[in-house]
C-alpha cells in the first residue's frame, strides 16, 4: 500500500523517512522528483494544479521530456504495484504541485510532517540554505509576482529580509500543506511531538499506514534523539536541539518578523507564536 510523506524543508523529514524505512517491510524513496529529475528543481515553487495533470504527459511541461516521463511512469508503477511491501515517497520541494501530485501519483495515505516555524527558519538561516541550496529569494519573488492576490504582490518589498523570505516560504507552503491535508484526510505529525513521545507517535504513524511499530524502530528512536551528529541532512539530532535550539539563535526582532508572517498557519498547527 503506497504512501506519501510531505513536509517543508528543515522539518525532520529525513529523520521520519529513515524511521519508517527501518521497518523491514517499508521503503521510502527520498525526493524522487526534486533529487532525481532536473525539471522539478528548476520549477520549484511553480504551481501545478490538479487540472494540469495530463494523462499522456503527466503535465504539458513534460511533453518533450521523454526520459523524465519514462522515469515518472516507472516510479508510478513502483509505487502502486501491490506487492506486500509498504512503499512510499518523501518530498519537501513539491508543495506547489500537491494537487497535481495527488492526481498523477495517488497514494492511499499521506503523512504531513510539520515543525515549529521558528525552528525551521533558524535551521535554514544558520546554514544559509536559503541561498546556496534552495534559492528561496528568486523563487519566492517569482511566486509572488504571478499571484492573483494584490495584497500578496504588495509584500514584494520584504524580499530584502532573509528572515522574512524564509518565513514567507514556510507560510505559503504550509498553507498548501494544511489545505491538502484536510482534503486528503492526511495524518499531521508535529516533529516536536515525535521527539517528545517517539514510540507513541511512531506507533500511530505505523498504524495509520496499516502496520505495527517494529522493535528496530524503537531502538533507532532511542539512539537518534540522544545525540546530534552528522551533516546538514543528518537523521541524528538531540531532542533539545530539535525543540529549543532556535530559542538561542533567533533575536527578538527576528521572532517578531516570523510571527507576523506565520501566525495563522502556526496557530492551526498548535504552535503558540
Amino acid at each position, binding site marked *: 500500500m503506497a504512501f506519501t510523506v510531505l513536509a517543508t524543508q528543515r522539518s525532520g523529514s529525513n529523520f521520519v523517512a*529513515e524511521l519508517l524505512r527501518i521497518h523491514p517491510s517499508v521503503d521510502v524513496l527520498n525526493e*524522487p522528483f526534486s533529487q*532525481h*529529475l532536473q525539471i522539478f528543481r528548476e520549477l520549484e515553487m511553480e504551481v501545478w494544479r490538479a487540472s494540469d495533470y495530463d494523462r499522456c504527459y503527466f503535465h504539458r511541461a513534460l511533453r518533450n521530456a521523454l526520459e523524465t516521463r519514462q522515469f515518472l511512469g516507472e516510479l508510478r508503477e*513502483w509505487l502502486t504495484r501491490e506487492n506486500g511491501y509498504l512503499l512510499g515517497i518523501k518530498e519537501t520541494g513539491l508543495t506547489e504541485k500537491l494537487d497535481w501530485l495527488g492526481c498523477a501519483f495517488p497514494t492511499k495515505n499521506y503523512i504531513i510532517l510539520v515543525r515549529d516555524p521558528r525552528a525551521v527558519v533558524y535551521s535554514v538561516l544558520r546554514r544559509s540554505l536559503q541561498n546556496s*541550496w534552495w534559492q528561496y529569494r528568486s523563487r519566492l519573488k517569482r511566486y509572488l509576482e504571478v499571484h492573483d492576490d494584490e495584497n500578496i504582490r504588495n509584500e514584494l518589498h520584504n524580499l530584502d529580509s532573509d528572515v522574512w523570505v524564509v518565513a514567507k516560504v514556510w507560510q505559503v507552503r504550509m498553507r498548501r500543506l494544511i489545505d491538502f491535508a484536510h482534503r486528503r484526510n492526511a495524518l499531521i505529525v508535529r516533529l516536536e511531538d515525535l521527539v517528545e513521545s517517539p514510540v507513541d507517535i511512531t506507533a500511530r504513524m505505523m498504524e495509520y499506514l496499516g502496520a505495527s511499530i517494529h522493535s528496530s524502530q524503537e531502538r533507532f528512536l532511542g*539512539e537518534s534523539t540522544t545525540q546530534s551528529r552528522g*551533516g546538514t541532512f*543528518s537523521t541524528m539530532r538531540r531532542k533539545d536541539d530539535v525543540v529549543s535550539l532556535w530559542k538561542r539563535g533567533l533575536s527578538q526582532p527576528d521572532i517578531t518578523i516570523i510571527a507576523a508572517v506565520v501566525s495563522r498557519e502556526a496557530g492551526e498547527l498548535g504552535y503558540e507564536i
Partner: protein
Amino acid sequence: MRSELADIINRSCVTIPPGEYCVEIEGKSLVYVVNAMRVVATPVTNGMFVEFLNASGEVNEFGGTYSLINTVNINQPLRKRPGEALFTVPDELVDHPVVGVTWEGAMKFARFVGGCLPREIEWQLVATAGDPGREFPWGNRKPSPALANYGEHVGATTPVGMYPPNPWGLFDLAGNVREWCSNWVNEYHHDLTTEEVQPEGPLLKVVRGGGWNLDQCFLSNTRRDYRWPRVGSVSVGFRVFWIDGNVKK
C-alpha cells in the same frame, strides 16, 4: 582504458577459497558451492567510476534525468565541469566509494571490467567469510564507530579500506555504502543457473551492508535491504565479483 581499469581492479581482488558453504537467508539454510570466485577488496571508488564513465562513452544525463549515476542531486561529487566532456571528482574524494549509482550503472561498470554484481547469497557468503554464525563482517562484537562507518557518526562516506576487514581481507562490507546485488528482493533462493527475469512482485533490487547515514540495524550480515533500481541514492554503491561455475545445492 578498459584494460587499465580492469587491471587496477584485478590487483585488489581477493580469491574466495573453493568449497561448500552454508548461507542463511530469512531463516532458510542454503548450501553454496564455490568453484571459482574473486571479489574486489573494497567497494568501487569515485576514481574508478569516473574512469569508467570517461572510457566507456556511456551517456548518463539525458531528458532531464540520468541513467547510471545521479547527477541531479547537487551533493554528488562526480561532475562534468562546464564546457568539458569528461567527468571529474575532487582529489579528496577519489578514494571514497562511489554513491548515487543506479543498479544499471553498477551492472554496466561490472560488465565493463569483465565481472558481475553478486546475488545476495554470494554477497552474504563473502560477508560472513563462510561462517553463517558471523553476525557482522568483523565478528560478533556490537557495532561501534571504530568498526564501521554508519549512523552518521562520520556524517559522510570515508575512504575505502579504513575500517577492519573481514577474515578474507574484504573491507567496508558493513557501513560506508550499501552494495547493489543482482537479484530482485523475492528471488534470493532461486536457482543460480537461471537467468533472472523481472518479477511480477515488487520492483525492488537487494542492497546489502548498511551505509554511513543508516542505522546500525542494517550492518548485520543477514539484514536484507532493498531499493528501486532506477534511482541512485547517497549511500548506495557496489562491489564487483567474478564468479565461475558456482552452484547452490
